[in-house]
């Protein structure tokens, strides 16, 4: 059974959906952040797999940009999480209702 691009796409879809389920299920904002990182990595697998399929390097270039943006997102997101946990004494997303109320 030869390895095709579809295998990689299925793996990527599984990882992305596990990350999405984590975002939907968990209430700890740190776990939600980790799940978002997992989803980004899954998208990178898709990009590289399609690049492999079409014999181009553009997929890998895009994945590299995604990783750089994810690093910036991690810095800003963790700073926001730190401020939220200082201000509300909690990391539970259900308690962050200051914009809703």
């Amino acid at each position, binding site marked *: *059974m030869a*390895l095709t691009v*579809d*295998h*990689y*796409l299925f*793996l990527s*879809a*599984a*990882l992305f*959906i*596990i*990350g*999405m*389920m*984590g975002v*939907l*299920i*968990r*209430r*700890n904002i*740190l*776990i939600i*952040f*980790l*799940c978002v*990182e*997992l989803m980004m*990595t899954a998208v*990178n697998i898709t990009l*590289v*797999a*399609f690049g492999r*399929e*079409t*014999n*181009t*390097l*553009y997929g*890998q*270039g895009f994945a*590299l940009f995604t*990783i*750089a943006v*994810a*690093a*910036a997102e*991690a*810095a*800003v997101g*963790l*700073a926001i*999480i*730190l*401020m939220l*946990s200082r201000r509300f*004494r*909690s*990391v*539970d997303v259900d308690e962050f209702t200051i914009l809703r109320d």
Partner: protein
Amino acid sequence: MTWDALIFYLLGAVSILAALGVVAAANPVHSAIFLILCFFNVAGIFVMLGAQFLAAVQVIVYAGAILVLVLFVLMLVDPDDLPEFHNARPVQRIVGVLLGAVLLLEVGLAIVSRTVMGQQGNATPELIALVGGNTQALGNVLFSQYLLPFEAVSLVLLVGVVGAIVLALPERLGAGSPRRGTISLGHPRGADQALAAGPAFETPIVQTRLEREEAASLDGSRDLIMVSDPDEYTTIGKRGRVR
């Protein structure tokens, strides 16, 4: 089954199990460590796809930098603040799993019934080996066609770093913490008596007769008044009241 497929299934199975561990672990530190395991396996998948440079970047940036940052933040968050996993709303869980299953079904159907193929490029494995490897080939693409996005990404990283510093340290950048202190409005013995009938600028708020009598009845002992802001007392101007 070839070795390729065997290694792929091994890496894929471990990465999916680790991803499930990220979602299911009750302790956030365990979640972060499961995610590191998942990222290492994804790096292996990148190597299988011929993206060696990306695999190295994945290990260095994700497993090395981002996850260490997450673990530091986990240390700074009080463990008492972490919500328990097991009091999550059951409806939320059921809907989450259901939506995930539906989406997996849809995406699976889309992958199986996929007919569109991209235009074939010329970066075949033989040509990449001729250029000098994956890193050289990717560098050629990055610094010729993708030069402007590359520079833009460096700006994004700079803005991200500045934004993180501004968000994490508001006190030092002028937001200011509320002043707290106690001021004693006690006067030396005898001064209170003079103040009760004293000059107007000492008591800016017009006193009623009752308040004046109350003030006069004070025997000169020191009143200790706790305020969060020193200006609050003088603008309200009721002497002798503990607020």
